């Protein structure tokens, strides 16, 4: 019995320790920091301050939260980031679903190669890949040139692509696409093809076979992929930083600013807290909805 318990701790101990050290403790520090005051030169002011006259003041406050709720700018930024993430998730789903289906239905010997191609971009640096988009979408690029020439033929004004919300969504979709393809593929690949035969045999046309059989059975993959795309896209700062210009700013940029530029750690923590709560809340809602959909299906 004891050796079994030891084995259990031996196996679950290291990941537990990892989570405590790098997830639970930092989260707690952040929760605490959101109630503290900024230090004079950035960072945090000490919680207990010994004044010159010997009085002690305890530096804990709700001011940071007040600031968040009193200025609609932050809520608007959250909403904007939310929509960027929603659009990114939707576009990723639209591109990834046919791709995952294609891979799952291609001959077994080709599948590994195709999956490899999906994850191939991970082999080069994230920033380099995003900078590449800066060039592709930039005003001097062939892509932009051809697009604007085409628009010109129809009498439209030339458009600017870089430093727009469009560029941000392109970057977000590009970076997150594999996170949608992989769980969808893992799900679709497990589907028993005889179910589609049965549906066809019982009178379902190809459209009905997709919506009545393939799609509902793939919902766990859709939700997994959506969570893997939505949550990081919601809080990302690097892509709007590089591709978004001033108009494409997202909540992640503001959080980064608070920590690195303004050096207002407590307010940065408040924004991070809100981001975490919103993301966890949405993920929880999605999980609940998925279960309910399964129960009602």
């Amino acid at each position: 019995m004891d050796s079994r318990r030891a084995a259990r701790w031996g196996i679950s101990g290291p990941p537990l320790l990892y989570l405590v050290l790098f997830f639970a403790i930092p989260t707690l520090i952040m929760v605490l920091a959101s109630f503290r005051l900024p230090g004079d030169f950035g960072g945090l002011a000490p919680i207990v301050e010994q004044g010159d006259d010997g009085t002690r003041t305890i530096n804990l406050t709700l001011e940071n939260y007040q600031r968040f709720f009193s200025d609609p700018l932050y809520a608007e930024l959250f909403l904007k980031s939310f929509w960027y993430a929603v659009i990114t998730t939707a576009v990723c789903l639209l591109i990834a679903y046919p791709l995952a289906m294609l891979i799952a239905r291609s001959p077994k010997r080709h599948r590994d190669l195709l999956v490899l191609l999906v994850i191939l971009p991970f082999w080069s640096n994230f920033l380099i890949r995003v900078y590449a988009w800066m060039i592709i979408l930039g005003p001097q690029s062939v892509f932009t040139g051809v697009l604007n020439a085409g628009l010109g033929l129809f009498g439209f004004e030339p458009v600017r692509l870089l430093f727009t919300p469009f560029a941000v969504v392109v970057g977000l979709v590009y970076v997150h696409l594999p996170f949608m393809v992989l769980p969808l593929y893992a799900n679709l690949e497990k589907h028993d093809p005889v179910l589609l035969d049965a549906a066809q045999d019982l009178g379902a046309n190809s459209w009905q076979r997709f919506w009545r059989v393939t799609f509902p059975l793939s919902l766990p993959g859709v939700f997994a992929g959506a969570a893997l795309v939505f949550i990081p896209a919601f809080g990302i700062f690097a892509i709007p930083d590089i591709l978004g210009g001033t108009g494409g700013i997202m909540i992640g940029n503001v959080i980064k600013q608070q920590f690195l530029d303004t050096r207002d750690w407590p307010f940065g923590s408040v924004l991070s807290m809100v981001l975490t709560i919103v993301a966890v809340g949405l993920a929880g809602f999605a999980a609940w909805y998925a279960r309910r959909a399964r129960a009602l299906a």
Partner: protein
Amino acid sequence: MALLEIRDVTRRFGDFTAVDKVSLSIEAGEFFCLLGPSGCGKTTLLRMVAGFDAPNGGSIWLDGKDMTGVPPEKRNVHTVFQSYALFPHMTVADNVGFPLKMAGLEPAAIKTRVDEALDDVALTGFSGRYPNELSGGQRQRVAVARALINRPKLLLLDEPLAALDAKLKENVQLELITLQKEVGIAFVYVTHDQQEALALAHRIAVMNHGRVEQLDEPSKIYGFPKNRFVADFIGTCNILDAEVARIDASRMQLRIPGLGEVQTTQIDGARPGDKGVLALRPEQVAISPQLRPDPDENHFAGKVFDFLYLGDVTVYVVELPNGSRVEAMLPNSAPGRAKFFEPGDAVEISWRFDAGRFLTE
């Protein structure tokens, strides 16, 4: 015209001919079995009837219409798949109602029909369950109910009992026979289990290497196998090498190397010198300790080699002087009786002249 006409249907996969010029016709209301070992082409033939596969040659006619180019969803034929292929994300009611929903019926009408169908297969009260909450037998019934609900012309069943245990199988066979009689829809049933085919079918087509070896009623298939393959595949059969020695007025004398002459019924077209085999069912071979001469019987002395106690019967393997072994079956009618003979006992085996069949191929 028959309900289903299969005319000279051929299906090749590369160099391999899975179905080789098969012609069959199946009548309305018939329970028809395609029987054969795995790889004999029976499932390929079934898939072509369902529309999942197309013949390389020949044609399939359903109810007087050529089915060439008609996709499965447009054919008035439904299939019960070996794995049942129930939709795991749908309840029993949604599974059974699926064909009606695809046909565009109103939800209220679907519900009435589904309740009736579930009642027919004794699954009332299971409508809200998911397939993974059912037993194997219940799943099989759901699959049958789903395939029958919009009354197809023809129901195809692809080894639907393969996943059930032996005891349940027998009950389900009886259920299927009753159900088929009630609904009056023609069943085409694919199996490799000869007992299942004999028990269920009105007619059986025994298939091997893509061809139909014999097409007949179960008792004819069992009693008068046309060739060595059918004799061997259906039931157990003693097969002894034999050659036609001479043909008398009504009987034929066979020479069995190392054993002697055996009399059997005459076969059309057999001529002295023809080589073939003598096929003999174990239950037609009598085994006794002493000689009982009878001019209508063939007699041989032998030695009990081994025996198999099967409960209702005991099968004795008797070794003959030429070294060949013949199985003889004795019923254990007295309770507690397991055997009459011991290995090594000298015995005599005998069978009536009309029990054995001479088969040339």
